[in-house]
């Protein structure tokens, strides 16, 4: 498998905030200093899986790239696990018709990966604890979902008292 080129990684992560690794701030140049071993088609797989999980056709490809990069750094064996999840979806598409997600005892690893992919998109954070990486805030899907009613905390809502009225 081909690896993502440095140029491609920069392209993928461009426009998104630096990846803060638990307790310290990891600058992208620091991240780029290490070879990125993600398969060339990983982004494509990630986007395909993400579209199925979110039931959205339109997903930001730049953000997807940043999520792939962060997931590769924060989640052990992410590339392989993503491939297994894709294979499962290819074989058993009906799994996605269940809500909540429940892949069964034989596919717990794939279910975990699916939840991690969703978590990245909706919260803008990948991984947990020492491995947590911040990817985006404003563009997290949860914040975008309520953007007609709320602003993400720390951003201005409006003039003092503008919150008196029903949103």
């Amino acid at each position, binding site marked *: 498998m081909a690896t993502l080129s440095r140029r491609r990684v920069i392209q993928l992560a461009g426009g998104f905030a630096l990846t803060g690794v*638990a307790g310290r701030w990891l600058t992208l140049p620091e991240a780029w200093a290490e070879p990125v071993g993600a398969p060339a088609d990983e982004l494509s797989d990630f986007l395909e899986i993400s579209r199925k999980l979110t039931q959205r056709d339109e997903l930001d490809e730049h953000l997807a790239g940043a999520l792939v990069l962060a997931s590769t750094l924060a989640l052990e064996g992410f590339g392989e696990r993503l491939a297994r999840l894709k294979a499962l979806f290819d074989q058993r598409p009906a799994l996605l018709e269940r809500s909540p997600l429940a892949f069964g005892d034989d596919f717990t690893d794939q279910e975990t990966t699916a939840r991690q992919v969703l978590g990245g998109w909706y919260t803008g954070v990948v991984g947990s604890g*020492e491995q*947590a990486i911040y990817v985006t805030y404003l563009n997290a899907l*949860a914040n975008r979902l309520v953007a007609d*009613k709320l602003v993400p905390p720390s951003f*201005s809502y409006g003039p003092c008292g503008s919150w008196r009225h029903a949103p």
Partner: protein
Amino acid sequence: MSNEQVVDVVVVGAGICGSLLATRLARAGRSVLLLESGPRKGRGELVQNYRESAFKSDYMAPYPYSEMAPHPRFSPAPNDYLEQAGPHAYQAQYIRMLGGTSWHWAAQMWRYVPNDFRTHSLYGVGVDWPIGYDDLEEYYYQVEVITGVGGEPDNGSPRSRPFPMERVPASYLQQRVTERLAPEYRVIDDSTARNSRSYGGRPACCGNNNCMPICPIDAQYHGGLAAQEAEAEGVEIVTEAVVYRLEHDSQGRISAVHYYDWDKTSHKVTAQTVVLAANAIETPKLLLMSTSDTFAGGIANARDNVGRNLCDHPAISVSFDVDEPVWPGRGPVSPCSIGDFRDGDFRAEYAPFRLDISNGSKVESVTKELLAEGYHGRALDEQVRYRAARRLALKNAMEQLPDPDNRVTLSDQRDALGLPTPRMYWNVGEYERRGTQVTREHYDLIAEMLGATNIKHSKEGAFSNRQHITGTLSMGNDPDTSVTDQWGRAHDHENLFMVGTGVMPTVGTCNVTLTAAALALRTADRILEETQHG
């Protein structure tokens, strides 16, 4: 820079109380040195830290951390700075940084109710303060003016003058909850140091809904502003200065304060007056560390009272989905509460409390909840909006009686400078448990009145602390049962004063910063009075 310095007054701890006191002393012409163990950071950097944090629900996460002046830390993993020795973990969240812990607060500036000062006389529980409400009323007002406090005037705390700040308009959520709970419950505006108009060179609140962990525009007052003002008044501030020992003379007066810089070079300060303002855990720690042949148990601890009687508000919480969209997350995070249970004869039987109603955005928490439940696709989108619009959370501020067994001591662990770290013992008694049961009944009734579904109570038998750390330096008339006198002066050390929430012998049913700050100004005036010919 010389390693020895002589000033009129040295203040240890540049939080809101130490800084307000230092300002007043400097304004009266005293030379004042303010020592802060932590670093100096600006608001912009802290806001950036918050926005780029992977742990946005952890209020400590945006703040700088150093092994040289450690404080409790919870993300990415707990650092266990506070050793837990009791049946309930006491998870204090204080910041060692210029400005102190009120960098992350909701600017709650409540007065006690008058009977809070006399619970033993009136109800046979707790202890009486050596002073009463009337002794503090003027100082309450002074702090309210400095910090710009507004709120509901009819809240059980009598006022001789109106609030200096007009109240911040109620959010739609607050209006709906107020209407639906009336008349059984009276929901009122909180007393907060939050601008509803330009004040003190700072803008009006514009609803960033991020009072905790950091207001991005300084629409609310905080200790960083107090420290800034102290410096402008001529107070010399030294950051990254970790005080590790108080030295005394043969009369028990504090003759020197010793501190390490972060390179562990030792410095010595001599002063006519020494004021400790390093919070209700770090100040006892410093006193207990300062042992000598004469004071083998530490400074101000001849009767083993330092660090005892730790009180907080042992809290339980509830969350649920209201049967109509109210959209928490618009306006300040903590704007209103129910104060119907703060005082009354029932205090002889069970703990009084106030009920805080959260208006913090619930988007992040409900999203995590839904992801954990396995939602995906359109159902996830629908539920994020549904729950984010309806989720309401309440938490109580319940008075805990002073108990000498609840205390701060020194652990066997050492920090990077070789100084001992604090050990906490915290238990919750039957009095508070009975108050908890009453709280729980009200939670259920409130949930019913709001047509709640998805009701979740906090874990039965578990209590969180509200970061209202009091009692560990209790003031009192009797040296056998207290650490300081009514002025915050150590009973056995004439020139040693303490300010901050630790000197408060009871915790009441409200946030404690206003009372601590009022006491600090009262102490400052006392110091000025006693040293005017010095």
